[in-house]
């Protein structure tokens, strides 16, 4: 399946500014299905990890309080054109998604 992660990376000098967007329902487990009245089970990304050329540059730990279709932005130094940035997440139900992009 094609990745549902979108990443934009902007290099200025050796600093890479990363903006990422994930498609995920981020269900809290406290919301009722309006049709059935049943609680919708919690379903949310727990950990989002970024590596640059295999080296971890960010680990974001999420709770259900991160908005649906999460946005996350950060910056790291020591980046250069041609580096491979990998984004991956895992959710509380064990699902995963990942995306690789080359900095330029």
């Amino acid at each position: 399946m094609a990745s549902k992660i979108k990443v934009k990376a902007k290099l200025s000098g050796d600093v890479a500014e990363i903006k990422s967007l994930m498609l995920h329902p981020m269900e809290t487990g406290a919301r009722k299905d309006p049709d059935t009245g049943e609680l919708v089970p919690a379903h949310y990304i727990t950990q989002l990890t970024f590596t640059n050329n295999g080296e971890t540059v960010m680990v974001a730990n999420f709770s259900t309080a991160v908005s649906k279709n999460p946005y996350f932005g950060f910056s790291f130094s020591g980046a250069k054109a041609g580096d491979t940035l990998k984004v991956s997440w895992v959710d509380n139900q064990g699902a995963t998604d990942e995306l690789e992009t080359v900095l330029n």
Partner: protein
Amino acid sequence: MDVGKRLLLKGGVALTVLAALPRTLLAATWPEKAFAATEADAAMSTLFGTNQAAPSDQITLKVPAIAENGAVVPVTISTTLGNVESISIVVENNPRPLAASFEIPTGTLPNVSSRIKMGETSDVIAVVKTDTGLYRTSRQVKVTIGGCGG
């Protein structure tokens, strides 16, 4: 050699191995208990071992003063503090106050942004952990429509 001494030696070796592991391997555990805490103080104690954080004007917390939609509240945190190890977002009045915690390896800039849900009007606390301790700054966000489904 007596048993006690041998145990001590073994323990020493194990500690050395642990210390030699890359920092990222140790850090990559999702802090389940801290996220489950229902009070801000308890969440901080569980995550950091203490809920005492020194107020700091070297932390910039950008949040809207009024959020029309509590389901999507943009939060940006940056700091000029040195040797930052992690940045966390705590929403005092949320049912589970710890919203997110970001681990900052050396080389990553202490500047993160995301979007969070807020059930009601609350203080949002940015907690920055550095090699010298815990620092915080907070701002109130007025929520007109809650973001927790209701």
